[in-house]
């Protein structure tokens, strides 16, 4: 009978959120094809391998697209929703904080950080200048 190896303590979604709760932003990278993967999942969407490691991305990214969701001031006002391409080669939904929602522009260079979002933590971005 083959020796049982210890099962990982959790699936990738729980691992991601557990790390995030500790203030750490991690993404996956495929051992087989070396491509980065986000969101966290069980097999590589590029090559199908199930050997995915966790890496800590640099957090540097570029805004791929952006929108301002219009909301009444009494409900908190307008806010940004953006798609950001990380330099590791993955895209994620997030928002750019610290500037007016309408000032977020496609091509803008941004840096990820882990912010408090109520009782949870969330990866958001801040602008670091324009490199479009």
């Amino acid at each position: 009978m083959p020796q049982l190896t210890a099962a990982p303590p959790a699936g990738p979604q729980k691992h991601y959120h557990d790390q995030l709760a500790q203030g750490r932003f991690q993404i996956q990278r495929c051992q087989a094809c070396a491509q980065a993967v986000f969101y966290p999942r069980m097999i590589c969407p590029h090559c199908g391998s199930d050997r995915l490691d966790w890496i800590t991305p640099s957090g540097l990214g570029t805004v791929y697209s952006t929108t301002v969701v219009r909301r009444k001031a009494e409900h908190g006002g307008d806010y940004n929703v953006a798609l950001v391409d990380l330099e590791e080669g993955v895209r994620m939904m997030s928002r750019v904080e610290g500037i007016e929602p309408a000032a977020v522009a496609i091509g803008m260079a941004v840096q990820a950080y882990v912010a408090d979002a109520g009782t949870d933590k969330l990866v958001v971005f801040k602008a670091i200048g324009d490199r479009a």
Partner: protein
Amino acid sequence: MIDPKLRGAAAVVGVGHAGLGEAHGYTEMEILVQAAHSAVADAGLTMRDIDGIATASVASTMWAMPVIEHLGIRPTFIDNTMIGGSSFVAHLMPALQALASGQCNAVLVCYGSTQRTSTLNRAEIGNARRKLDPQPYETPYNPLSPLSSYALAAARHMHQYGTTREQLAEVAVAARKWAQLNPEAYMRDPLSIDDVLSSRMVSDPLTVRDSCLVTDGAGAYVLVRADRARDLPHPPVYVLGSSTACWNRQISSMDDLTVTAASQSGAIAFDMAGMQPKDIDVVELYDAFTINPILFLEDLGFCKKGEGGPYVSGGALAPGGRLAVNTNGGGLSCVHPGMYGMFITIEAVRQLRGQCGQRQVANAQTALVHGNGGTLSSQSTAILGTQAAL
């Protein structure tokens, strides 16, 4: 490659709808059954002839079962495929295969929604879906679902190709002009480019007038094999091409926001039909938002990638323009009960039968129907034609 024998092997022989606009006092099942009953009668058949069913619901995952109960049928072909608003275009290919193989003899495709008048409002459905069908890497950022996803695609198209808000507005204005020729359309007031540009911004660059309606409505159509279709009351509308594609669910998982899976479904459907865009007389595109027809005209090959904005300009899609697009007024101005793919199919059939009154496209022999589902996620293309196009 799809078996060439499937081209034209089946035809739409009946269509029906019910409860368009507001269906006060009715459930979505009730208007669905009204539409189904009407479509079966239009086909010159009775419900006893129906031995295949295809349907889908926004809320109910096992929707085919209560539909079968309400219709009182015992089908040998059941398709409950739910891939959003394109579902009722996507239902064509499995139905075609089931008919061609002899699994069944008459397929009823049907849908109904009372999202406008229902006491269960869209916010409640949205909250339930967030629990049952989570998107944990998008939901925390509160995009309007689905509107902000389309806004992100529009913003990227504008950035990459110089598409303008005026060009987006052209799509809404053309749809309204068709709606003004359609007594069944929900919104028929005049609408100008300036009206669209000055309407309430929802999620930049999309305004409320860049967005589809929220209405009630039910629709149904009946498919039989071509040999049988010729003996029924209406001229058959043959299925010449059909293909469905899905590359992702979430907008953040889409490789290129300016290229949809319609580029795959369209190519396969055209190949099956042995046609090209220049062969199409009437085009019915799922216009959930004004960016959609621009993306689909590009991805389906009516113009080059990036040229959709200039292509739709100057009233090009309106009555009398370069291409007859969304001749019922579209989801933007005619009807949009949650999943609109049913209604583009019905409109194409009616155009090919020559039943469209003031909005009839002269001598229409071929139609392209293109459904979209989710957030530019599923794409389904069908090419329909009259006897002359076989």
